[in-house]
């Protein structure tokens, strides 16, 4: 099921939390929502999850429109809110049963779905406890289990891996990737490596506006106009000679020392050109040994900072 968001605006008093944003999420996409605190991530997700109405704009989920067919939409969405609120007084199994019934799972299938979710989310050792007695990680699993219990076509997860240990994080990420193959997944997070690990599309929003949209590779390409290389050259005592020679190459724009003692340089090429061959030939000509020649990738952190800091 696709989600189409058109000109969505949400105001809290005079403040525009979400400011006229439009985007489209296709089936089979795992979309990562990034943005600094207060950027409007959670607000957008709440609107898509039918928790509150927007001031302006339209959200379409499949053939349904929020506000007109809200009941139908709610049935195909699994939602894990921020901070994972749960009924602490209820036992895990009872809670999952309650959610399954509310979401309209057929009575005969309820027990089967619960067993499946308990298995997938690794809740087996804790399933007879009250939710309030569980550790944070297990509560998070309960939150995920309740979001997926009715096998929704769309999953909206607001910071799904907070409070989990590294092993669980890997498990949950694999799970999300697996689900994302046939379903539409929207997740928000502050952990940038997580986005790279799970999402095939990234949406960065800042102050209620979309500032970047694309896969992590295409975002990198956008942010990084020029090729940057890390070069290590040995068998030459005078590093200044190397520096001068590198600088005199045609395609090279800037040369910088990374580590002067070990002859490691950062070489930035002119826009659209590559200087890898030239560096290699330079070394051959001078009988230097080239022990390292690698791309310096712009990290997602840097892209994020560039786009969201003014």
């Amino acid at each position, binding site marked *: 099921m696709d989600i189409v968001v058109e000109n969505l605006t949400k105001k809290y008093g005079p403040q525009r939390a979400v400011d006229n944003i439009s985007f489209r999420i296709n089936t089979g996409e795992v979309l990562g929502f990034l943005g600094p605190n207060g950027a409007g991530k959670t607000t957008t997700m709440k609107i898509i999850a039918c928790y509150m109405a927007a001031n302006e704009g339209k959200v379409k989920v499949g053939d349904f429109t929020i506000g007109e067919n809200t009941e139908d939409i*709610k049935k195909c969405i699994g939602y894990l*809110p*921020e901070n994972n609120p749960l009924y*602490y007084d*209820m036992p895990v199994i009872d809670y999952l049963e309650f959610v399954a019934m*509310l979401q309209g799972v057929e009575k005969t299938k309820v027990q089967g779905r619960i067993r499946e979710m308990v298995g997938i989310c690794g809740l087996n050792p804790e399933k007879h406890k009250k939710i309030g007695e569980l550790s944070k990680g297990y509560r998070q699993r309960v939150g995920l289990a309740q979001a997926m219990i009715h096998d929704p076509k769309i999953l909206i997860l607001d910071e799904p891996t907070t409070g989990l240990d590294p092993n669980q994080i890997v498990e949950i990420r694999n799970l999300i990737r697996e689900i994302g193959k046939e379903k539409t997944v929207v997740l928000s997070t502050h952990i940038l490596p997580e986005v790279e690990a799970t999402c095939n599309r990234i949406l960065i929003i800042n102050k209620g506006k979309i500032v970047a949209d694309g896969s992590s590779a295409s975002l990198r390409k956008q942010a990084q106009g020029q090729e940057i290389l890390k070069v290590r050259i040995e068998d030459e005592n005078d590093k200044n000679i190397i520096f001068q020679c590198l600088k005199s190459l045609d395609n090279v724009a800037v040369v910088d020392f990374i580590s002067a003692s070990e002859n490691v340089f950062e070489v930035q090429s002119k826009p659209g050109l590559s200087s890898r061959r030239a560096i290699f030939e330079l070394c051959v000509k001078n009988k230097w040994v080239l022990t390292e020649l690698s791309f310096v990738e712009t990290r997602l952190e840097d892209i994020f900072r560039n786009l969201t800091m003014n």
Partner: protein
Amino acid sequence: MNKILIIARKEFLTFFDSLIAYIMLVAFLGFSGFFTWLYGMDIFLRNQADLQAFFAIAYWTLFFFIPALTMKMLAEENKTGTIELLLTKAVTDWQVILGKFFSCLALVGLALALSLPYYITVWKLGPIDHSAVWCGYLGLLLMSATYVSIGLFASSITSNQIVAFLLALFIGMFFHIIFDVMANNFSGIIGETFSYLSVSSHYESISRGVIDTKDLVYFLSIIFAGLILSEISLSKRNVTD
């Protein structure tokens, strides 16, 4: 309808998971039993085979216990954020409100049902007016429903349970006693208006065995008003200017 039942069942079971139900039942039966059988204007002092002593005391115990039941209904969900989880499921705001309303009413109903042994005991003691007893129970149920809906409204506008409890008592106090006192202090149309607004005058006429549509309309309209206000307060997150 089915969704209302699911929510009501869950809330009802939660009462028992969190001990509230047991405390409420024991306290209600303990208090009303003590004053019905052992102390004050009890049944033996009245020397009549009726349950007026029980109805008089239940009128007050329920007044205090019901806000304690309703206070967590929406206030706690507002505070912990579970309301967001609940309302993003395939339910409407009305189903949530009605589910919670019926769960509270069911617990009160259970408490009243457990007091039926009093009725049977008195019946064995002497000639009892059965219809008056059943009307008394009906009156208590209608009154309870009224305070449940007021309590739900109080709970829906805050995220603090104490505030919800006190607010429900405060609003309830007007219907329970203040309007009655005012009615006695004024004469003419003002006095009649206050008398009409007072729960006690309607409750008394029902518990005497007279079921008048006027009284039913009175209780039902307060119940609906409370429920509608709760629904409005719950759905105000959707309000866009």
